[in-house]
């Protein structure tokens, strides 16, 4: 599992008396703003891909192997004359939405396990965390390959496989935060006020774990984009005509030497989306605070 480790975009550091009052806003540099904006733009592209794409994914409006910019095709055409630009847009759609979906499920499932473990303590904590550590100790991507191979290649099976391996990180983070919060005075106050167990968990413990989970999740998106497109490259995504970036690149690899754009442009699209996700993750960390 890709553990997103911290690295900071160079930001002006002000110390002592010169430190501005609205520190949070100042710490977000222009790069972070651009990155967060790009994140929103990519999401919009993903949502409206069908509208934005000039052609459908399976239409063959042009001759095969038109170079980028020729014949009115911005990114050229592939081996059967399909518009690469349209297919890349649709590919970004499936990769991006799939990544967000998997992150969402990982945060929900892992977060729930971490919350229950951290809030309950005792043997429940021990068992759940042992389970989490076991999953953390296994190589996620390799396991995902096996799960898809067993279920049979399809987009949903790939998503299920990655969801199965993508939650332990969040369970660890949430559990750590919750354990730290559990000893704080406000918990005692809430307990004295007669709050029930569920109320303690969701009103008094969970909110404290949200920021660091969000940071981890946003830093994780790019790893997921790359993992999903790699699985698709290996033939483990949606079957052939579907516009998936990894599969498009893999199919086009036979034409690499003569018609480089056929395999390279979908791969570049993965790169673009991953970079946006990476930078936006850093931006989110600076915005929410380095923890």
């Amino acid at each position: 599992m890709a553990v997103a480790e911290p690295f900071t975009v160079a930001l002006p550091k002000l110390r002592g008396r010169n430190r501005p009052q609205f520190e949070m806003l100042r710490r977000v540099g222009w790069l972070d703003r651009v990155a967060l904006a790009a994140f929103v733009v990519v999401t919009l592209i993903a949502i409206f891909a069908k509208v934005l794409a000039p052609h459908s994914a399976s239409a063959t409006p042009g001759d095969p192997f038109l170079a980028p910019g020729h014949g009115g095709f911005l990114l050229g055409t592939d081996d059967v004359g399909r518009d690469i630009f349209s297919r890349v847009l649709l590919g970004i759609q499936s990769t991006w939405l799939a990544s967000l979906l998997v992150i969402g499920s990982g945060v929900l499932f892992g977060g729930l396990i971490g919350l229950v473990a951290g809030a309950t303590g005792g043997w429940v904590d021990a068992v759940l965390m042992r389970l989490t550590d076991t999953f953390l100790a296994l190589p996620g991507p390799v396991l995902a390959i096996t799960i898809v191979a067993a279920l049979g290649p399809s987009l949903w099976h790939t998503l299920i496989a990655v969801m199965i391996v993508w939650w332990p990180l969040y369970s660890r983070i949430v559990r750590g935060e919750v354990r730290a919060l559990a000893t704080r005075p406000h918990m005692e106050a809430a307990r004295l006020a007669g709050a029930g167990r569920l109320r303690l968990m969701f009103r008094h413990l969970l909110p404290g774990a949200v920021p660091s989970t969000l940071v981890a999740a946003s830093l994780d998106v790019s790893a997921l984009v790359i993992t999903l497109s790699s699985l698709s490259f290996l033939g483990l995504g949606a079957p052939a005509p579907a516009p998936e970036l990894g599969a498009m690149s893999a199919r086009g690899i036979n034409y690499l030497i003569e018609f480089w754009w056929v395999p390279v442009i979908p791969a570049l699209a993965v790169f673009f989306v991953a970079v946006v996700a990476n930078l936006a993750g850093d931006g989110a960390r600076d915005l929410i605070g380095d923890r």
Partner: protein
Amino acid sequence: METVRFYGSRLVGMIGVLLVLAFMVFCLQRFTPADPVRVKLGANAQPQIVKAERHRLGYDDPLPVQYFNYIKGIVHGDLQDSLRTRHPVTTDLGNTLPATLELTTFALVIALILALILGIASAARVRGAGALRVVLVAGSSAPVFLLALLGILLFYRKLHWLPSTGRTKYLDAPTGPTRFLTIDSLIHGRFDVFKDALQHLILPGLCIAIGPAVSIGRVLRSSIVTNLRSDYVRTARAKGMREWAVLWKHTVRNSLGAALSMTGLQVGLMFAGVVVIESIFAWPGIGFYTVQAIPRLDFPAIAGVTLFLGAAYVIINTAVEVLQGVADPRLRV
């Protein structure tokens, strides 16, 4: 006593994780839609024959018995037969493993060298470190297949420096005794083969190495930066040590622990990268074997590879943990 308990708990934990791994693969195998007996005999096989074969292979036993037999088989080195090659998966793994080991070892060495350079240079703010970092960070955001495609376009098509597929162009390349082509060619005194093997290694090795290099380098950098603020560094500087000596002798050494555990974790990602890279470069290793198995629904082969890679990953990470415990007894909790 303390020490024995530390090693014992790590060993028990490792065996537990391995059993869970085997259990997951076992479950997947039972629930795969492709019936292994059908795939083996073909769709038109007669029902009696299918039934007999099912019984022979033990597929009609109760599940716990099957699981027990499965584990017993694994312990005895039996990973069942590949449905595609019809050989035992263990034999196939034995044939393909050396190529993969050679590639990953080479990639790991490159990754560690790059990580050291990146970590130390950016922590010490050497001129040009910023540019290096941008290149490497961009490289780590790229999927390995993009790196491979661009690498082939640049070094094979444009510059003609490096080959794009396979392990060697020599048909008479030596095949013994280590099955590492670079080492075998040196043993046999075939320097032409050695040079050729090295050329074949560079591009795939580099593609696999860049991602882990950046991750390890980042961890190294942040722990060097933290350690540079510590008291012993102030003492070393105060007694007039050169900055480079402070960095190399004191700081880097104390910072290697975190980088080491990151290396262990990155090995898992490298395995995934290896599968993709081997399929692009037609590298005759276990990744290529897996990629050929996927479209044929050859689940025993895929399961064998997973069990092997998973076990390797778990063992490597346990070893890293134990090594850290040896180096720094404070970590033995």
